[in-house]
């Protein structure tokens, strides 16, 4: 902090410039310097070493070979798997979570439902990673509770070819944190859907279906899509859950980077950088899309 200095006049924020004449502008920036210094040292520079490292060999030669390798064999497969898994769970979690949020928020819902739902959603959205993987093993693993219950009822999941340690199993597990995340993200947007619109549509003779087709969904679409993009990024970055659940049976980008890092495979560390660069690129594109959707969604938010 700078030395004590009296604040001059009223409305410091309302009239910028009033103060800057009294103090050198450099001093004004002083309190935010640690913030930028810290993020530079522990986020931006580390990320930069990854981005740059993808273009160099072990002995410092420029190369595009690592990036080219991303389009081959197991690397490409890892991206395909990660993208599919993230997209599938974003859509499924988004749809289910959206409907649940609507059930709790829509007009006529008892008042206690919403805080209850968001509380449980907060817990479930934060309950992820290793413990979540074990919770699902206890539920749907080979000797899990649900597996055995279904067996007693004559449904043999594993006999029918299902296994938790697969793409489908991962998708099911991810959905556990995707649904509550959707509920938390979409609930405020659902508030923007005003009761008056529904009443106005009804008084003009619109059916429920017509209301949703011409008013409800068009208004909500940017918010819902935006929320699904967030869910996508969330699943795309997941490492702990697939690591603990499948220990690499399902080839994903995050676990592949982890393998390179831990020296489990005999690969060039710079290949790991290239894999990481690809991840940043995918998420950056998705987040740019999210920002655009947010701008459209903001029109209807109070």
């Amino acid at each position: 902090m700078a030395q004590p200095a009296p604040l001059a006049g009223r409305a410091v924020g309302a009239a910028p410039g009033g103060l800057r004449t009294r103090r050198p502008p450099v001093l004004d920036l002083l309190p935010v310097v640690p913030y930028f210094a810290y993020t530079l040292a522990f986020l931006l520079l580390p990320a930069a070493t990854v981005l740059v490292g993808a273009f160099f060999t072990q002995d410092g030669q420029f190369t595009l070979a690592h990036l080219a390798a991303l389009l081959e064999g197991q690397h490409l497969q890892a991206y395909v798997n990660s993208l599919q898994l993230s997209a599938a769970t974003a859509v499924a979690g988004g749809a289910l979570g959206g409907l649940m949020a609507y059930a709790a928020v829509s007009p006529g819902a008892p008042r206690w439902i919403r805080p209850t739902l968001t509380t449980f959603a907060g817990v479930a959205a934060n309950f992820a990673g290793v413990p979540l993987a074990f919770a699902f093993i206890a539920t749907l693993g080979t000797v899990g509770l649900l597996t055995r219950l279904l067996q007693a009822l004559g449904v043999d999941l594993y006999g029918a070819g299902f296994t938790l340690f697969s793409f489908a199993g991962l998708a099911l597990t991810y959905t556990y944190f995707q649904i509550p995340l959707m509920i938390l993200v979409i609930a405020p947007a659902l508030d923007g859907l005003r009761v008056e619109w529904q009443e106005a549509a009804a008084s003009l003779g619109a059916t429920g279906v017509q209301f949703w087709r011409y008013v409800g969904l068009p208004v909500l679409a940017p918010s819902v899509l935006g929320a699904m993009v967030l869910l996508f990024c969330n699943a795309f970055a997941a490492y702990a859950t697939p690591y603990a659940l499948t220990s690499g049976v399902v080839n994903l980008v995050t676990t592949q980077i982890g393998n390179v890092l831990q020296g489990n495979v005999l690969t060039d560390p710079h290949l790991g950088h290239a894999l990481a660069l690809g991840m940043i690129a995918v998420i950056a594109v998705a987040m740019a899309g999210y920002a655009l959707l947010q701008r459209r969604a903001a029109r209807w938010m109070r």
Partner: protein
Amino acid sequence: MTGRFSAWRAVWLLLGGCYFLVPLVATAEFSLRAGGGRYDLSAYAFVLRDPRFLESFRLSLVLALETIAVALVLLLPTVYWVHLRLARLRPLVEFVSVLPFVVPPIVLVVGLLNLYRGAPELLVGSPHFLVTGYVILALPYVYRALDAGLRAIDVHTLTEAAQSLGAGWLTTMARVILPNLQGAVLSGAFLTLAIVMGEFTLANVMLFSTFSVYINYIGETQATPAAALTLASFAVTWVAMAGILVVGRQLGGRQAQIGGAR
């Protein structure tokens, strides 16, 4: 109309409730299994006897407290100053605060190792080095919590009032601004606690035995103690969320609840 509507609502919420509860019930049942269809508390006894349980739990807790402290010291002055003086800089500061979303933890740890592998062992060899990355993971959430808190109070008037009574910057911060931000600070802290207690990626790659790494280690060989630890981890998440709820009630407004280590 209302009747049909309520039934539809109830079905969805019931479905959601089942999806939420079934894995937890299954985990509890699993943790009590003793083989041959019998149940006992041996998994819990095993966990409590294992010194690594307490060690890893304490390590994660200490790391969480350190992360909260560093994040607050870093962000409180920044967010306060942006509200008070540097409105022009707000877009840039906010942009940086969401950048951790673009860099997934597994990529962040690659970068941290690249940059600091050669640093003195005292720094990089200690599990406390994890805090540097954890602060980055917590940054978007703590920033948003503090930002929301400062939005809810009149920063300018409070600061002017304090200073016209002769308070310096530190006094203003500690005795005027901070008490008004209690709810925001605490909800950011509880969310950080939940994130750090569950964090696995950085710790696993850097080979430090935090709580999550320990749970995974146990799970590789013994299933029932792993289930017991999973319930313990779930309880930690509940405590953190309950904390947010309690301080959020004072706060009145919406509070950050999204975080988690996937």
